[in-house]
């Protein structure tokens, strides 16, 4: 069943066409990896899915509803789609726990023991039970990124978007964040990742999409994309990064 469906999505910043007719279907429980060079449109595509950027043309359907319709209130949609950023974007003036509790409190009106128990359980699930009262600058990059993931999960989203979430991390911290993704994958979360971690994409993705100049040039199961890429550009890109 298609959870998220994009048809003919176009987006330009001035004369610079960033997305040039994207068609993409993400089924429930699937993990889709977007790969491609910097500037190929991966990040913009994710930001459009979360309505952080309005699209110029085409449509984005979430569970069959067109969420990209101009004039539509983006807030309720965003609560259903979680997003994690490359630079974590934690709120630096709040503890890890306050970062996670803010949206459930203000958007969902949750409070009290029910909320704090649920949040504590989330921290425990991702091995951060002893870091709840720390401020972001007291946490390592890997821990901050895990808190950012917990913050998005606390809204119980139907789908999660990850924008190169390991790119800002020191190499020895990448593993702990990828482990969180593995865990989510095992729990059946629907996920879309923009990533440079080819090994990870190959191991876990259902579908890999190669983006080039705002188009999905090639997509398919990881084994096919990584072993028998059809397009010369895909081959050139893979030979550079593998």
């Amino acid at each position, binding site marked *: 069943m298609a959870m998220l469906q994009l048809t003919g999505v176009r987006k330009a910043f001035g004369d610079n066409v960033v997305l040039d007719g994207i068609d993409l279907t993400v089924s429930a429980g699937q993990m889709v990896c977007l790969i491609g060079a910097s500037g190929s449109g991966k990040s913009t595509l994710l*930001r459009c899915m*979360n309505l*952080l950027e309005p699209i110029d043309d085409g449509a984005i359907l979430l569970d069959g509803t067109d969420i990209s319709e101009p004039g539509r209130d*983006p*807030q*309720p949609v*965003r*609560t259903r*789609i*979680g*997003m994690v*950023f490359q*630079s974590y*974007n*934690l*709120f*630096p*003036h709040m503890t890890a726990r306050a970062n996670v509790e*803010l*949206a459930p409190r*203000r*958007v969902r009106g949750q409070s009290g023991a029910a909320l704090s128990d649920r949040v504590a359980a989330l921290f425990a699930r991702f091995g951060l039970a002893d870091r709840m009262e720390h401020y972001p600058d007291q946490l390592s990059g890997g821990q901050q990124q895990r808190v*950012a993931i917990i*913050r*998005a999960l606390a*809204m119980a989203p139907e789908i999660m978007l990850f924008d190169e979430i390991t790119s800002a991390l020191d190499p020895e911290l990448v593993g702990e964040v990828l482990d969180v993704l593995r865990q989510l994958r095992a729990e059946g979360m629907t996920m879309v990742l923009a990533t440079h971690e080819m090994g990870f994409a190959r191991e876990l993705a259902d579908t890999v999409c190669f983006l080039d100049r705002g188009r999905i040039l090639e997509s398919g199961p990881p084994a096919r994309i990584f072993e028998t890429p059809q397009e010369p550009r895909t081959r050139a890109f893979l030979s550079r990064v593998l």
Partner: protein
Amino acid sequence: MPTRREIFEARQRRRANLVAAGSTGLVVLAIVVLVPLAPGWEAVQRSFFNGEVFARTFPGLLNAFLMDIAIFAWCAPLIAAAGLLLAIARDLRAPALTPVKLAATAFIDIFRGLPVILVIYLIGFGIPGLGLPRPWNSPYLWGSLALILVYSAYVAEVIRSGIESIHDSQRAAAQSLGLSPRDTMRFVILPQAVRRVVPANMNLFIALQKDVALLSFIGPVEIFRQAGVYKSLLANFTPYVGAALIFLAITIPATRYADHLMSRQKRARS
């Protein structure tokens, strides 16, 4: 055992200290020797640095300075609150609130563009001129209002610069969680912005403490006015020097503290 570099640096430091002490000593010596040679020095010393007059007027000046502090104390919180409201009003995006936004913008432009003393005169003489009954004709009231109007415009601009300094990624993160624009401002942007501009606002409040003296022109007997009274009474300017010392005793430590906060913030962000 000090390393070669440590020995070298210690020698450099000794030399630098020696040169600094020598040049400072020369300048001080020149002032101490040359200034008393000026033809009017004795007259200036008598009328500005008169120890007897100083001792006689200083307690009275200190007492009058309590009025400056009181005016500052009731103006400051009102300025902080009004400045925050103005900064928010200026950033409003809802079309229905455009009049509020325009009014805030006009307010800020007008009161930042006028000399403080002019606003104090216009409001301090103008409004009581309407013939209002006591206590509504008090120069304390309208003088304070003039300070609040001018300084809240400055504070609003400082806070707005703080809001603009918060990186867009913070707004994106808040929005991606489904927070409303209002909650994003209230819980994510403003707390960070206000913290970031604390040193700049401290400098404004130091300036305010000094500008309280301007109210003396419309009546309130605060330290500057009191010094003027003593001057006329004793035909001596020393009370002004005493008043200057009292201001400096407050403003220099406060300025140093603001500088310290600012450099600490710079370190924390780098």
